[in-house]
């Protein structure tokens, strides 16, 4: 067990506080992830190759950046909510509005438990909202999500490659991406089921505050696109 020497996932962590960056970096390393930390939403967008909504791979866009950005392999973005200039919410919106990264999982962190804020982020497409202090158990829960996104991406790339190689005479195979049963466990309203797996029972207070902030019959438009063919 635990024989993988190479981290499977690369996480981009965004926080304006040096203290919080140090903490989240260590947590992610401990969760066997490769980590890149940046101190602002702007730098996060730069790292991804997005500049204020202008995508570097958009042929019609006038790019002001002289550098050609290689696509970086990032499996998850985790960002603080309260940041000067571009907030975590603003960053979330920009990422979800981009065609290149709209399926990139984004997790928001905050030390304030504001139900309206939590709802707003989740409705904008954030996968999770963590109250600080973030725990190792919280990050480990993100792994199935990152794995699914990574696998889907790989499958799509394979299909693109296949249809390019075969002069259009073979129909593209429909990607059958199964939705893993674990997905439902990521819903915050059901997270109380996770409590027994938590090392510290006191961390459940964080989850409870999320539950209180969300109506149980709210449906989240998450992953609805996955089962349809590309």
């Amino acid at each position, binding site marked *: 067990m635990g024989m993988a020497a190479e981290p499977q996932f690369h996480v981009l962590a965004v926080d304006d*506080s040096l*203290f919080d960056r140090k903490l989240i970096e260590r947590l992610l390393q401990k969760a066997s992830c490769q980590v890149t930390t940046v101190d602002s939403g702007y730098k996060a967008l730069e790292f991804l190759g997005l500049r204020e909504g202008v995508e570097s791979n958009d042929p019609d866009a006038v790019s002001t950046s002289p550098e050609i950005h290689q696509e970086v392999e990032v499996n998850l973005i985790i960002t603080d909510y309260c940041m000067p200039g571009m907030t975590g919410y603003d960053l979330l919106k920009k990422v979800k509005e981009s065609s290149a990264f709209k399926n990139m999982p984004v997790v928001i962190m905050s*030390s304030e438990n504001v139900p309206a804020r939590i709802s707003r982020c989740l409705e904008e497409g954030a996968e999770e909202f963590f109250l600080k202090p973030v725990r190792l158990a919280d990050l480990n829960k993100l792994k199935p999500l990152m794995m699914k996104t990574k696998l889907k991406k790989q499958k799509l790339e394979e299909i693109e490659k296949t249809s390019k190689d075969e002069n259009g005479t073979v129909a593209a195979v429909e990607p059958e991406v199964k939705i893993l049963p674990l997905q439902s466990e990521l819903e915050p309203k059901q997270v109380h089921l996770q409590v027994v797996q938590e090392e510290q029972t006191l961390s459940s207070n964080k989850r409870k505050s999320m539950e209180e902030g969300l109506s149980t019959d709210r449906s989240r438009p998450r992953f609805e696109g996955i089962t349809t063919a590309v």
Partner: protein
Amino acid sequence: MLGLGVDRLQADINRLLTSLFHQGVLDEQFLQLQQLQDDTSPTFVYDVINIYFDESEKLLRSLRLLLMDREFSDYKKIGLHLNQLVGSSSSIGARRVRNVCVAFRSASELNNRPGCLRGLEVVEHEYHYLKNMMHELFQLEQQRLLAAGVRYPM
């Protein structure tokens, strides 16, 4: 003789930590922090707590300057500074510091200047107590490492 040194120091460390937990100075989040330290990051707790000290002292100085100003009215700024202090104190398990920051923040939300001044004094007191305790802890751990190091020459 050397073995006794390590054991004795470890007992001192345990006793100090137990006392801090009982006093409510630290909570179980501090243990979470310790669990993040390992051979790949052997000074993590020391490093991150020192960053906490640097950032907290900047915030405390700023708070004092703001409140000492007779023309002061920027309670929002005080609130923002306190949000940071509450967050980082929670993250290292500094329970008492966090709690007195929350109380101070309540005074700032009511635009209560005398309440803020009192709040700041209490926070400064708790913060310095924590800092002294952490320094004592780090010293004991340093001594223990040295004592253990002599037993296992590299």
